[in-house]
């Protein structure tokens, strides 16, 4: 119960600064691991310290002020650290994520207050309020958190756990029933490829945990369309609308970012130049190959068509490839005469936005559509989607580290029964992402899969 917890203390979204609060025995030690500046373990209590938060590769994530408040004279009576960051969802979340990776646990709603109460800092009246808050929120949030992991990620985790449980129960049977020669013995040689496969599955799940990535890196957005369809005008219009342009985020993207806009606090990184930059050279038509590649990499495709032009064969072919992506078809220049055959676009109906960049019509509906598509409103509130994902991702990353250790142990020919303990821990942790795991599951698996007994 006295593990170290952290949470963003200020409301998320756009603000000049954001504060992340950490409480618990290891809070100073953990923050010190990701802090470049003074050695925080040596500074006096109740001081404010200037420095930088750095990531694993020592890249600077943000310039910060860190307040150190040592036990017992703090809100929770535990050691508390508060990090003042430069606001903005991305850097703040990155800091939070680093804390989670380094041993903090994300605080539950009301948990700081709860600790304050348990440690005798506040009285019963306040505690009643805390009780209600915990009651009202935790269960709902727990369920929401579970529900809101995308079905795909959830399925991947289930598949992974199924694979793991087979390995675990097989090893356990090898240990508990060593005299049975008809049970396969999992040797190091057999296990190495299995573990490597588990590792690859975890990597894949991390990749699939899209929402988390969106929070961290923003939405990689490409505007596709023929020259002169109004791509850069749209970009400019969007940028103009949103005056708050975020500064570059260290280490987030290798792409050339044309521009960044923020919608309800989430960043849209508009990427790639060639497709967008209009030249006077009319010969540079739409490169189909190139566009396909851009579409492949994007999280969001804004596919622009000209209301005043007929659909060409190459465009039709590109539209066909949109199936598995998140996309919005923008029909620009709706102030001009309609030459576009809208019947051909019937099947995309739900994803179509009509607008005129020139006249500034329809930009808002475009933004709403984006918000809808990525559940941005849900992401933005304080809350389960974001929390669950950032929590899931930090669990997944921990699991990845552990499975890499198992792999290493195998290569060093460590006893398999010891490595099994790590595999089982990973299995249990993964279970936390989409529901709880019970040991009985394991025993059942053992006895249903293997034939044992007197």
């Amino acid at each position: 119960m006295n593990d170290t917890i952290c949470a963003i203390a200020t409301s998320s979204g756009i603000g000049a600064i954001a504060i992340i609060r950490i409480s618990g025995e290891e809070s100073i030690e953990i923050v010190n691991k990701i802090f470049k500046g003074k050695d925080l373990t040596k500074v006096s209590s109740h001081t404010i310290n200037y420095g930088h938060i750095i990531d694993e590769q020592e890249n600077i994530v943000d310039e910060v002020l860190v307040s150190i408040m040592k036990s017992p004279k703090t809100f929770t009576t535990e050691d508390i650290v508060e990090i003042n960051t430069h606001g903005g969802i991305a850097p703040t979340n990155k800091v939070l994520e680093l804390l989670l990776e380094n041993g903090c646990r994300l605080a539950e709603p009301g948990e700081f207050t709860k600790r304050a109460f348990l440690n005798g800092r506040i009285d019963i009246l306040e505690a009643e309020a805390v009780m209600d808050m915990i009651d009202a929120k935790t269960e709902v949030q727990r369920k929401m958190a579970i529900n809101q992991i995308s079905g795909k990620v959830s399925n991947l985790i289930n598949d992974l756990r199924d694979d793991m449980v087979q390995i675990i129960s097989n090893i356990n049977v090898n240990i508990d029933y060593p005299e049975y020669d008809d049970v396969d013995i999992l040797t190091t040689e057999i296990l190495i490829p299995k573990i490597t496969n588990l590792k690859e599955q975890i990597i894949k799940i991390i990749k699939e945990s899209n929402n988390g990535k969106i929070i961290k890196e923003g939405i990689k957005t490409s505007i596709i369309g023929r020259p002169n369809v109004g791509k850069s005008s749209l970009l400019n219009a969007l940028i103009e609308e949103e005056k708050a342009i975020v500064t570059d985020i260290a280490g987030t993207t290798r792409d050339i970012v044309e521009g960044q806009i923020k919608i309800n606090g989430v960043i849209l990184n508009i990427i790639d130049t060639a497709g967008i930059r209009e030249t006077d050279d009319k010969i540079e038509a739409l490169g189909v190959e190139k566009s396909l590649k851009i579409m492949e990499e994007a999280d969001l495709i804004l596919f622009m068509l000209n209301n005043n032009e007929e659909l060409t064969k190459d465009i039709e072919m590109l539209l066909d490839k949109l199936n598995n992506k998140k996309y919005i078809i923008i029909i620009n220049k709706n102030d001009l005469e309609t030459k576009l055959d809208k019947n051909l676009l019937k099947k995309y109906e739900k994803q179509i936005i009509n607008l005129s960049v020139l006249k500034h019509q329809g930009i808002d509906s475009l933004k709403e559509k984006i918000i809808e598509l990525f559940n941005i409103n849900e992401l933005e509130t304080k809350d389960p989607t974001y929390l669950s994902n950032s929590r899931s991702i930090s669990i997944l990353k921990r699991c990845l580290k552990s499975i890499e250790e198992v792999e290493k142990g195998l290569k060093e020919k460590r006893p398999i029964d010891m490595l099994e303990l790590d595999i089982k821990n990973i299995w249990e942790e993964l279970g936390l992402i989409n529901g709880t795991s019970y040991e009985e599951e394991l025993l059942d698996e053992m006895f249903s899969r293997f034939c044992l007994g007197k």
Partner: protein
Amino acid sequence: MYEIIVVGGGHAGCEAAYASAKKHHKTLLITSNLKNIADMPCNPHIGGSAKGIVVREIDALGGIMGKIADKTHLQIKMLNSAKGPAVQSLRAQGDKVTYPKEMLKTLNEQEFLTIQEGMVEDLVIENNEVKGIVLDNGEKILSKIVILTTGTYLKADILVGDTRTRQGPHGEKPSNYLSDKLKEYGFKIIRLKTGTPQRLDKKTIDFSKTKKEPGDEERYLTFSFDLEPSYKLDEQEPCYLTYTTEETHKIIRDNLNKSSMYGALDDIEGIGPRYCPSIEDKVVRFSSKERHQLFIEPESRYYDDIYLQGFSTSMPKEVQEKMVHSLPGLEHAKILKYGYAIEYDAIYPTQLTASLETKIIKNLYTAGQINGTSGYEEAACQGLIAGINASLKIEEKDPLILKRNEAYIGVLIDDLITKGIRDPYRLLTSRAEFRLLLRSDNADLRLREYGYQVGLIDDEKLNKLNTKKQKINDLLVFMQENKLKITKEVEEVFKKENIEVPTTTLSLEQLLKRPEIKISFLEKFIEIPFKEEIKEQVSINLKYEGYIKKSFKEAEKMLKLEKKQIPENIDYDKIKNIASEARQKLKEVRPKTIAQAIRISGVNPSDISILSVYLKKEYGKDE
């Protein structure tokens, strides 16, 4: 008047009676049949995976199972010797004649202990406190404490084919009323089931068609930390291995409806163990398997019965004949005793505290199969703990409660009282989350001091332990101080063994930490003047340092939560907002600590939060 009465002379009863008498409490061991003291009605072995470690733990605490097994076994070996140190475990083939004999001798020699025959059918109870026992002839015997270790004898039914007979494993009279009485006193009683295979006449078996399974012929092994081996390596009795055939499977499938469990009896209530399926179960559930392994095990040096492990069944006798004769080597085997299933009553174990005293009746303790476990070792360790704690209660001392990170015994009791059971409970290594700490090799280091504190281990044995600890430290220092210089000769030896040559001078400690280097390899260069058991401890601690540290860290987390006590009189109905499933489970188990509460299935983290806040609010000053 007796201080303690132990009801039942099985493995639990023997340890309980021995411990309390050893602690100078006037004890009565009452059994329905003196011939059945320490009887092994089912398989003839002691130990096995996880269970072997429990026998070591019993010995470390001052119990007797390990010593008696050491003196009498037919063969012994270390299981999993090729695997890591955490899962190695001893398994001995017991002698069903000499083991009980030796046990009876030990108990007869024990001061303060009386052994008597009698059938207990009721308890003397006043104000929810036990005061003694009532025999079937109406006689009352009074005591301060009663320990029930009735095994499978509560309303035991033997099932063979379509017959159900009210009797114990050897055809004795079971206790017909005691479990009804317990129900009247408020206990939740459950019905469990287990089974046993045939016994065959050794002379009629053709062993040439089977595979020999000898004991460990390389080194001497003992369960006990105090005994020198008293057997000869080459005089161990082998076991043998055979397999079922397609014909066996056909016989079983053709006669399935004649098995008690597959319809011949329509009143089966008992839940059988998942890990101990009958041969019918195996053939039905694993129909794709071409054959099942069977162990042919001698039961004693003094008679010819052979135990057919893996062939437990409740088929009628004539089908059993056909089944046995379809097995290679057993074509002409004479069946001395047919396999059967047995149904019996047990107490649902969440009604116990960790000391094994019941929550419902004061001064009543229960141990062994009555608590829903199966296995001699599981029974014996509970008996020992019940015996110790009953004595401590009389002495007005705190009970001995072993934690999950201290002993398999702690895991077993905590599982029983916290999680309850679905089927007869068997210990498995996978149940122990801290199994890296709970090894066979360190049972004495973990538990001897407790044995000393409770008075079952004498000064001499404690001194021996302290010397061992000192030696371990000395060797560690030795390993740190001695370094290996890499000379041409040294290099050669490394290369010869295919071990990567170190680039600089390293201490023996650093070298031993490398996975591929054994302490025996280092002895090629430097003499290490310490006993084998000391080298073993230091090797394990150094080689698996990282893993062991991780386990310790996990254990510490749990221990912190174990310190958060939940008051005994807490009223869970008064806590608002707790989920109803959690409330019901908490009321049933009544956990002593937050750590125990977390382990109850159906209690979620949010419930724990609410519980913590409530505790602080109501009992804040106590924390």
